[in-house]
């Protein structure tokens, strides 16, 4: 019977005697008496349109208590298992006191469907609001947790409220820790719906201060990534907050933090796992924690190197591997900003038998000092599909050498016994063969390009084409372009008639023009042909000489013919972008060559052999 399953007295124990609750009721079983949906407006959250929140009432037959379902537990409502009067098992929860009322934040619960939905069992009474001070000023709104518009005094009153238990550290479930009278929240329970929280977190990374200058104003900001054993979250401070807190926070140290504004994370700035981020405001309090044992040193969401090939590009992962090779620091000039910056390549291997390249940037590149053969964990690497698979450490990322976690010890054991002498597979072997740019290996035949309507959609399509040049357009194969080189301006310049050439974009007149190719090339394979446009870089490769040289031969038709003929019949691998363009009133697909590389016969040969074998199966 359901009544027998229910853990009577659990609710009272949870709030007033957490030790006993842990011992006697490690997994409380309660009846759900009510389920209410809270929409964005009702909860008074700053950001409307967040995930819906559910408020439920749970009873242990003696008492009932209001509970908020954490978003990660929303699935029990979405899949219909949580119904009114059903019986549930509380697997993970946090006890809180909010404005004088007891509240349970349910992080994980399980519906015991076999017990069905009996009518309300027993005569549960609301839990005594013991040891709490009633709020003097009535809070407006139906909000359960207190709207963001709450006046500032209430915050200090909350701080004085007695917590549910003494300072103890424990993992999930149970009463939770408290600090200065307020309960410690796990990072994963943070949300905009609740402003009275304190978290105890370690600083994972603290990138340098950034400044901005825009027409609307200028300012400075800093970000830190904080984490505890339940999750990580980004915290940003602007202007005054930078002065106040930037030096207080140190990487690797643990702090108690409260009073920040919690808002929805802006994914486009930083694709992070957590839904929320924190912003420091005037009421934010950050205190160094004396005891940092309860917060783990490092929290990793590990992906092994072999599995990287199944990870989509632009995903953020953590990896743990043995350093096979550390490259030197290279200084390169950014094409966009013309500023120099540092980079360094590391080769990582692990016991899946695969190796991968990881790139470090800026300060992380210059300050990297882990040695070859050490086990290093890299947090926050972005996966790219360049050259198969390849990792890049984000500025918010960090690395730690020889972390004290079981995976690291296992790797060390493997490397010492086998890994040192092993040869590793790279993901490059699965990427496009024969193409120096190593782009995704999607070779198409001309027929497939036309059948699949590549380029006719909203977005341009990219594909690789192995084909032979059968014809090259001899009229209009180039245009005069602006000489400005730094940054390169390739705009068409106008002939002023007096031997000078004017560029509208740079507002400059040159005394000669540089001719750049705009070559129309007919590429053919065994299924059909396509007209592909090649711009200067590619065309130089195809023709074997510059456009300027050809222009100087303008008069000599025979010579020009010979050159064009020589360039034809080349078999190359083209990387093509197909895009819709409108010519007057007719939309047409235009094919543009992004790269043209000679064929690597060896790998192409193997590929063909493989195809043939598959054919005969």
């Amino acid at each position, binding site marked *: 019977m359901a009544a027998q399953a229910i853990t009577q007295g659990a609710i009272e124990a949870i709030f007033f005697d957490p030790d006993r609750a842990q011992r006697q009721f490690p997994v409380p079983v309660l009846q759900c008496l009510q389920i209410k949906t809270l929409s964005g407006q009702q909860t008074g959250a700053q950001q409307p349109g967040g995930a819906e929140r559910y408020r439920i009432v749970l009873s242990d037959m003696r008492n009932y208590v209001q509970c908020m379902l954490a978003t990660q537990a929303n699935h029990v409502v979405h899949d219909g298992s949580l119904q009114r009067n059903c019986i549930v098992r509380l697997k993970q929860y946090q006890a809180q006191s909010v404005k004088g009322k007891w509240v349970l934040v349910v992080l994980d619960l399980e519906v015991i469907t076999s017990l069905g939905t009996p009518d309300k069992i027993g005569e549960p009474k609301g839990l005594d609001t013991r040891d709490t001070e009633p709020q003097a000023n009535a809070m407006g709104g139906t909000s359960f947790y207190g709207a963001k518009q709450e006046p500032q005094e209430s915050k200090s009153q909350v701080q004085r409220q007695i917590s549910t238990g003494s300072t103890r550290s424990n993992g999930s479930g149970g009463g939770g820790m408290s600090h200065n009278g307020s309960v410690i929240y796990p990072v994963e329970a943070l949300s905009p719906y609740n402003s009275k929280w304190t978290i105890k977190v370690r600083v994972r990374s603290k990138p340098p201060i950034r400044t901005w200058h825009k027409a609307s104003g200028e300012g400075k900001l800093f970000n830190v990534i904080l984490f505890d054993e339940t999750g990580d979250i980004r915290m940003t401070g602007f202007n005054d907050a930078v002065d106040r807190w930037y030096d207080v926070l140190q990487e690797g140290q643990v702090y108690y933090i409260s009073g920040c504004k919690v808002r929805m994370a802006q994914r486009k700035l930083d694709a992070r796992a957590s839904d929320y981020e924190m912003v420091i405001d005037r009421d934010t309090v950050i205190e160094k924690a004396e005891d940092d044992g309860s917060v783990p040193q490092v929290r990793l969401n590990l992906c092994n190197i072999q599995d990287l090939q199944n990870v989509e590009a632009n995903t953020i992962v953590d990896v743990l591997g043995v350093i096979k090779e550390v490259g030197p620091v290279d200084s390169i000039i950014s094409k966009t900003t013309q500023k120099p910056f540092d980079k360094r390549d590391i080769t990582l291997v692990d016991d899946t038998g695969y190796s991968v390249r990881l790139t470090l940037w800026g300060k992380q590149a210059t300050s990297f000092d882990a040695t070859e053969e050490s086990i290093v964990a890299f947090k926050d690497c972005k996966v790219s599909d360049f050259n198969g698979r390849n990792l890049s450490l984000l500025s918010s990322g960090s690395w730690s050498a020889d972390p004290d976690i079981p995976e690291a010890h296992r790797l060390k054991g493997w490397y010492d016994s086998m890994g040192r002498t092993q040869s590793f597979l790279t993901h490059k072997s699965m990427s496009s063969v024969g193409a120096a740019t190593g782009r995704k290996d999607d070779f198409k035949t001309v027929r497939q390009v036309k059948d699949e309507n590549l380029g006719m959609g909203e977005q341009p399509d990219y594909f690789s084409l192995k084909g032979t040049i059968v014809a090259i357009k001899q009229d209009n194969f180039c245009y005069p372009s602006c000489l400005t080189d730094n940054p390169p301006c390739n705009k068409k310049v106008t002939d002023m008639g007096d031997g000078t050439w004017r560029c509208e974009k740079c507002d400059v007149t040159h005394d000669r023009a540089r001719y750049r190719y705009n070559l129309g090339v007919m590429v053919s394979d065994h299924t059909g042909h396509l007209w592909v446009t090649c711009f200067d870089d590619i065309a130089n490769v195809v023709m074997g000489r510059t456009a300027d040289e050809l222009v100087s031969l303008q008069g000599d038709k025979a010579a020009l013919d010979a050159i064009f003929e020589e360039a034809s019949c080349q078999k190359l691998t083209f990387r093509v972008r197909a895009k819709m363009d409108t010519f007057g009133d007719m939309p047409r697909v235009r094919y543009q060559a992004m790269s043209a590389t000679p064929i690597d016969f060896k790998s192409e040969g193997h590929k063909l*052999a493989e195809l*043939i074998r598959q054919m005969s199966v």
Partner: protein
Amino acid sequence: MGNISTPRVTCSYLNSYLGRNVLIVGKVMELRGDEAIVDADGNITVHLNREAHLSKGNGVQVIGKVNPDLSIKALTTLDLGTEVDFTLANTVVEISHQHPEVFHS
């Protein structure tokens, strides 16, 4: 030219082409005067002619006649350098024998 074709072969196919002209791509293992041992998925003895300039360890293409003792009397040889992918070459031989209608007129 004549009507005979010169099929690509490796060591194991030699006894199907006794007395015929064949084309072999392999690696030079030994050089002894006017004889060479060429490895094409198995060792083959090649009797060289005057113009042959082979290097040990390099790839070589030999066109020649198959003797009854399964050695080859070379008609022409071509040094292929060091960058030869022998696996690929052997694969080509295999596949061409699996699809004779395409390769062997």
